[in-house]
């Protein structure tokens, strides 16, 4: 822990950057995969790099490639992008108790780089008492730099790239997030919340429109959390 009070500084940002750097190395591999796929789909090199730099959300970028054609349908693009990225709404909300304590410009500046991995790390840290928002921001920077650099590499490397899946790299994020989940509390209440979230996400996967399962599962788990309150004698 480096800050007991909520703040955003260079030291925390650097720490966050270093913490997410090992994982970001794998993000490079996915950036390469995206760059390759983008060029094969027909995006220009500048479009591929700009998309990674501005959108910075891998799953929705791959989904956009599927929609890419001469006339790209705008409404499906908006809906797909929103559905895949709607989990950010929940991730941001979960950090609200901490980010609300910094001025608005900083608050939304930080959130520009929120992504699965740095959110999970930051939330775990904040629950353990860390208050430096640089963890989130620096972690996001590491992921962003590697995502964009990977995309660029994917454009210039045209052969000799091993299939990330054959190396098991498609499982990096899943395994990483799993350790984050397991690092949290494991009591009956959490087990029930997780079971409800898991069951709902699977039902949504088969019954609800595509890409809504993460939000559906998370909201269901949240509702259980709202009605089954924790016994309070711990620091928030």
């Amino acid at each position, binding site marked *: 822990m480096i800050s007991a009070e909520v703040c955003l500084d260079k030291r925390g940002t650097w720490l966050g950057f270093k913490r997410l750097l090992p994982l970001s190395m794998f993000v490079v591999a996915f950036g390469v995969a995206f760059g390759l796929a983008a060029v094969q789909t027909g995006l220009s090199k500048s479009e591929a790099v700009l998309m990674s730099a501005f959108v910075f959300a891998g799953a929705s970028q791959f989904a956009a490639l599927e929609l890419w054609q001469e006339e790209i349908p705008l409404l499906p693009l908006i809906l797909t992008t929103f559905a895949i990225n709607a989990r950010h709404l929940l991730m941001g909300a*979960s950090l609200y108790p901490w980010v609300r304590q910094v001025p608005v410009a900083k608050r939304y500046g930080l959130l520009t780089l929120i992504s699965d991995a740095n959110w999970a790390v930051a939330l775990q840290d904040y629950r353990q008492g860390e208050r430096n928002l640089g963890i989130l921001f620096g972690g996001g920077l590491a992921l962003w730099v590697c995502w964009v650099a990977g995309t660029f590499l994917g454009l210039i490397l045209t052969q000799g790239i091993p299939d990330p899946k054959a190396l*098991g790299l498609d499982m990096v994020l899943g395994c990483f997030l799993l350790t984050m989940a397991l690092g949290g509390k494991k009591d009956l209440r*959490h087990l029930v919340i997780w079971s409800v979230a898991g069951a709902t996400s699977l039902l949504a996967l088969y019954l609800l429109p595509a890409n809504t399962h993460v939000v559906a*599962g998370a909201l269901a788990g949240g509702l259980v*959390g709202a009605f089954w309150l924790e016994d309070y004698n711990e620091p928030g």
Partner: protein
Amino acid sequence: MSPDNALAAGGLVIAVMTLVTLVTRYGGVFMMSFVPINKRVEGFINGMSGSVLIALILPMAVEGDLAARLSLLTTLLVFLLVKTPLPAIGAGILMAASWRYFF
């Protein structure tokens, strides 16, 4: 379509995606600023944040191949055993890669 138009169309797509994604990145915190924080809201947020992880991971396991499932299972077991993330993640990836190589 001339190359100029194509670039504009691509640029439009990127702009739209950027905007939509920023709405999702900012929207949660923005909405929360109108919600009074009480114990129920706190319970909701806490329950929801762990649930995001589960709702991401479980469908990954169900929709993935056997290697993906074994990989997550390996990470789970190693993490419970050694209680540190890096060896658990490493073991999971190794499992996926070697399963796909050998089978």
